[in-house]
């Protein structure tokens, strides 16, 4: 195959993928560029100015929403990574009745459209008195993150098996020693990758937060959505630029820890 397609085939292939990448990146780059344009109406010619980033520093509403988003993302990362890692450990170590049912229960949070889970949570939380607010949003984010944490940490656990732990036990290590000296270091890359993933899921989540945020409380995506709906200025481009760059940095870190997207 390679001999007939040869070099020109490769160049054409890279060209085609390049066009796809243009489609994926041009809107994002244009959006980012317009954050640095002075005109409040996105008018051209382009006039470089940092006025929108400065305006951001004085926008208390956006800053509060940003702080909420970061706090929820951090809390979500800690809770989801802890609970998910424990569950992955249980799945890797024990065979028990109902295990496959528990594993199947991880599928709904990631396959049912967020619109349905979000409105279902709204109904249930309102009805039972759990209510809306940052605590409800956090609960929703943990539910969405947990399946991914269990899957990511679980695949790491599967890749080295139980042989090393058994060896440690044979050599006289007790349960805690085995865990801290053998299991934990081996699991660490999986846990870090899962934590990064959980943070990104929470920080980017809009739909669940939108339904669970009461009037006056919001996260960054909820705030951006209402700004887009009401009429926006390049300030939204400025905050979006920051979000995009932060998300991409996290994704690169995730790729490093999980070796995702490349070699097989």
């Amino acid at each position, binding site marked *: 195959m390679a001999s007939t*397609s040869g070099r020109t085939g*490769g160049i*054409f*292939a890279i060209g*085609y*993928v390049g066009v*796809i*990448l243009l*489609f*994926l990146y041009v*809107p994002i780059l*244009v*959006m980012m560029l*317009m954050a640095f344009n002075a005109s409040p109406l*996105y008018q*051209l010619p382009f006039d470089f100015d940092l006025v929108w980033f400065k305006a951001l520093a004085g926008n208390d509403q956006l800053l509060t929403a940003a702080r909420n988003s970061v706090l929820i993302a951090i809390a979500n990362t800690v809770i989801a990574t802890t*609970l*998910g890692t*424990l*569950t992955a450990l*249980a799945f890797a170590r024990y065979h*028990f009745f109902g295990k496959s049912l528990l594993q199947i*229960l991880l599928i*709904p*949070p990631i*396959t*049912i*459209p967020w*619109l*349905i*889970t979000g*409105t*279902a949570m709204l*109904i*249930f939380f309102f*009805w039972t008195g*759990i209510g809306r607010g940052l605590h409800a949003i956090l609960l*929703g984010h*943990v*539910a969405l993150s947990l399946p991914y944490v269990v899957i990511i940490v679980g695949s790491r656990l599967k890749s080295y098996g139980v042989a090393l732990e058994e060896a440690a036990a044979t050599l006289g290590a007790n349960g805690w020693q085995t865990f801290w000296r053998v299991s934990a270091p081996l699991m660490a890359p999986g846990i870090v990758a899962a934590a990064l993933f959980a943070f990104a899921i929470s*920080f*980017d989540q*809009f739909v669940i937060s939108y339904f669970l945020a009461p009037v006056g409380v919001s996260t960054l*995506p909820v705030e*951006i*959505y209402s700004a*887009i*709906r009401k009429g*926006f200025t390049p300030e*939204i481009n400025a905050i*979006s630029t920051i*979000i995009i760059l932060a*998300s*991409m940095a996290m*994704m*690169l870190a995730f790729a490093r820890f999980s070796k*995702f997207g*490349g*070699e*097989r």
Partner: protein
Amino acid sequence: MTALVSASTRRLRAILGLTGGTYLVLLITILLPLAAMLYFSFLTVTPIGGRTASFTLKHYTDIFTKPLYRVNGQRSLMLGFQVTLICFALGYPAALFLARHIKNRWREALLLLIVLPFWSNGLVRTFSWTMVLTDSGLVGQALQAVWPGAPSIDLMFSYPAIVIGLVHAYLPYMILTCYVSLQAIDDSLAEAARSLGASSFTIFRRITLPLSLPGVVAGTVLIFVPVLGSFMEPRILGGQQAIMLGTLIENQFTASFNWPLGAALGFTMLAVVILIMGICYPVLKKHLSAN
């Protein structure tokens, strides 16, 4: 004997301790809410704020008889088909090229570039199209400069704008799932076919395409289901007149406070999702076990 009993109790306690937290969260965020939603979908009014509700099937009969819901339901299904089909038409060749013609270092870099925007905020990416789909914007002006008399790209608040935004959002799914399937195909199969005199097109049609089908199906499910439930993209890019099943459901919860109707619409959508999953499950299982 006592030692045996205590060992199995300890084991049970360990399993409960390790999995308890996760499933407590899933119980109060997914299982009970879905049960509550099902219950609400049979009520006459939202039983909150002192109102008393009684049992009714009215919302479901409305959904299946009133043209408003049928028309919007069909429109949402149509949108799902169109977005999925365009993602396949654009994404499959890209996956094929990445799996077959592009070598190691390039391949890694390009794959990373394809998934990178994918994990950045979907809302922000949808918003970014409002900067592009106008003639006075950077892209519109550049296009007019390079190609005077170029057709207008002023597509904001139209159906094509929704399709473009959704394809942009979900294309990486299709590329990734197809790539994974194509990558797993053994090269020696194609070589054997070639030595027996098969043309490149025959090899593609008889070997490559059928063997990569699980990836196509996985991509289709991963795209079709969220597009069916989309409401933010139609709202931002489609404007006021863009009514989809998703925006209809959102409306019941954020504007008209008719939660029972919203719940019934949500459950109807969920039934469609489960149906799609059920149909695709045998192929999906193959996809998962193959990789």
